[in-house]
């Protein structure tokens, strides 16, 4: 059944948004947690790549993609812990550390990942949420990875925890006013260490999505800046986990423009459309940089917005 190109593109965009948004979502949620406690982790790009590789390698050797997801989380947690530990040393610049972790994580991932480029590892299944629609393309679009649902659940949990649990309040306190936290006997460094580690864990899972679901293979070009865009995404979402989910969907749609247009045969401007997420990110950063509303919501201790 032939369809109007616009509809095809729209369907592809929805599917793309659902698919491509998931790694954004996980990395953004991880970074949201880290930044809420007052630290910036720019190294999540490296965490994403290392997570992807570990997930793929583990799934390949054990035959279980979910073990791969777990391994990716663990790898991310290790990198996050490194970042968290190093940044608490005096006179260390957390932005520069982020850049260094980016290249370190990527280097380690490429180093150990070389043997895994060819072989095929078992992939994560999808939930066919669109089966009820009679339309095969729409059904394909609406195939949702369980990781996406997990991500939304994590976002809801985080949002609830920030307002209603002791640990959530402590994280907010540490990020907004380190002197207040210290006066209360809270170890600022420990809190930030833990949030950075957990943030790394989440980002690692985002990487697992890339290698085990979509695109579903491991190679050295797997990620290109998604980790970085997630940092901007968090600013755009004004540090609210729920808004992070919405923003991730938006970014996912932006990232899906290129492939969606290709699917209807629009091949020109391929690179430009692939650059759309970066341009969008830059745009968003410019808009939210001097925004009054962002200024209200920003955790007071965050160095990139000071």
């Amino acid at each position: 059944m032939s369809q109007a190109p616009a509809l095809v593109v729209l369907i592809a965009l929805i599917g793309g948004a659902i698919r491509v948004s998931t790694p954004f979502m996980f990395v953004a949620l991880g970074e949201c947690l880290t930044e809420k406690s007052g630290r910036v982790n720019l190294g999540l790009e490296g965490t994403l790549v290392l997570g992807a590789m570990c997930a793929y390698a583990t799934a390949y050797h054990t035959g279980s993609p979910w073990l791969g997801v777990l391994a990716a989380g663990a790898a991310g947690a290790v990198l996050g812990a490194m970042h968290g530990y190093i940044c608490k040393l005096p006179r260390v610049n957390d932005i520069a550390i982020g850049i260094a972790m980016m290249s370190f994580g990527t280097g380690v991932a490429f180093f150990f990942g070389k043997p895994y480029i060819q072989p095929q590892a078992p992939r994560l299944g999808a939930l066919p949420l669109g089966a009820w629609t009679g339309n095969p393309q729409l059904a394909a679009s609406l195939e949702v990875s369980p990781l996406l649902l997990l991500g939304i659940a994590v976002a809801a949990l985080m949002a609830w925890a920030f307002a209603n649990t002791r640990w959530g309040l402590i994280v907010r306190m540490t990020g907004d006013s380190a002197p207040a936290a210290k006066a209360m006997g809270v170890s600022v460094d420990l809190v930030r260490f833990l949030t950075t580690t957990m943030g790394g864990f989440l980002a690692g899972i985002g990487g697992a999505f890339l290698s085990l679901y979509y695109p579903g293979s491991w190679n050295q070009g797997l990620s290109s800046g998604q980790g970085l865009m997630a940092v901007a995404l968090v600013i755009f979402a004004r540090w609210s986990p729920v808004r992070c989910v919405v923003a991730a969907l938006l970014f996912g749609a932006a990232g899906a423009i290129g492939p969606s247009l290709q699917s209807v045969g629009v091949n020109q401007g391929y690179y430009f459309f692939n650059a759309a997420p970066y341009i969008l990110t830059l745009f968003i950063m410019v808009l939210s940089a001097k925004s009054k509303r962002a200024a209200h919501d920003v955790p007071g201790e965050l160095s990139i917005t000071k």
Partner: protein
Amino acid sequence: MTGPATMPGRAVSLETVAMSKRFGPLAALDDVSLRVPAGSFHALLGENGAGKSTLVKCIMGFYAADEGSVLLDGKEVEIRNPRDARAQGIGMVYQHFTLVPSLTAAENLLISRADAPLVVDWTREKRKLAEFLDRMPFKVPLDVPIAQFAAGEKQKLEILKLLYLDQHLLILDEPTSVLTPGEADEILGLLRDMTRRGEITVIMITHKFREVLSFCDSVTVLRRGRNVGGGRVSDLSTESMARLMIGDTQIRERAARADRAAGKTVLELAGLCANNDEGLPVLKAVNLKVHAGEIVGIAGVSGNGQSQLFEVLAGQRALDDGRVLIKDTPFEPNRDSYYRLKVFGLPEEPLKNAAVPKMTVAENIAFRSFDRPPIAKLGWWLSPVPMRDKARELIARYRVKTPSPETAIADLSGGNVQRAILARELSGDVDVLIVANPCFGLDFASVAEIRGQIMEQRNRGAAVLLVSEDLDEILELADRVAVMSGGTINYVAAVAATDRATIGQHMAGH
């Protein structure tokens, strides 16, 4: 301890016995013994660096004293960290607020509890908080983020927090420095009533004699880490307390003010409007004139726009409306204007606002002159030798204590950093001088010198704008006083023709 309850008769007495604390070769505390009876309002006096903060931090467990002990109600207690202090019922209100701006009062109070629940049932907690507030002599709104509180409300919340945590020995560190005289009196009065009722004991670090005389029962004076005297306030006078604070050094005359009529208007602020960092208006049509040969002091409680006014004049904040006129010409804060119109400035906290910490003393001193001969040739080539020579000369003239001109300025003491900045700004011809809180945190000797330098510039004919949170400083130095409240100047008068009460009223916005 769930929930609070300040009940009568819970006040405790505190005694320190022979407390000593060293930092390297420096004896911050030397054999300090003092006694604070239960239910008393006790003042701790001393100039900056006398050891008041150190003593209090030892009591609170931030520092471990090298020697000595603390007794509560006659029994020795061991305080190894702030948690122990809190467990003993000792609480402290710091100079800078320890409230979390983005959290509400309810959230701040809840999270300060050591036994805060892992999962919060807000309905129950809010109910109990409301009950607690009902028992208190003052209230604050529970559901507004602290960022929107006024300074006085924040201070009240800090005190409420301690009461909520069932602390009955309260230590206050300069609690009224951010309050209007009216707010200060209100809070100190409430605390005094609570001490009279035997509910709490209060130790207040202060340097304001007026507060000591009006609210306190007894006082201890520290000088250079030692307890040099004290007693009941009713037995002491301002002079005796001052003498205890400064010691045997002669109390010298105040800076000599040359008798002269003020000259023409040199600096005019015409309808200045500016926004703060969040985009909200912070300067709302500021109008003021400063004449040659006079000091105009801008008084006001911190947070009413004084810092932002200084930033506007120093080029650190943009004007939304209005103009600054110097010698009747519109003034733009660029380098050329500063040079031509001979405008100089001494910002507060010089290491933060006027110096580059990692650069050398010589380089910092050269900030005004680095792009002119003799240091700069052809307008762009820099010669280090003239820079160093000029620096040596100024270091000697202004008595800046530094091992060498090539030392990083961050390695100098606060007083010497300020001297270096003075050397830079005041060594030439000054027509307009803008100063903010120049003596904050400095010892008496530096304070005297710096105030003398400012007075000297005034005597030489400069127009001086002095922004200060220390009303005493303004009353001593200024010819005229202007009060800034709510982002605008609502009162101007000659210092000789007004009094503290009137100024205080305007500071509070009346």
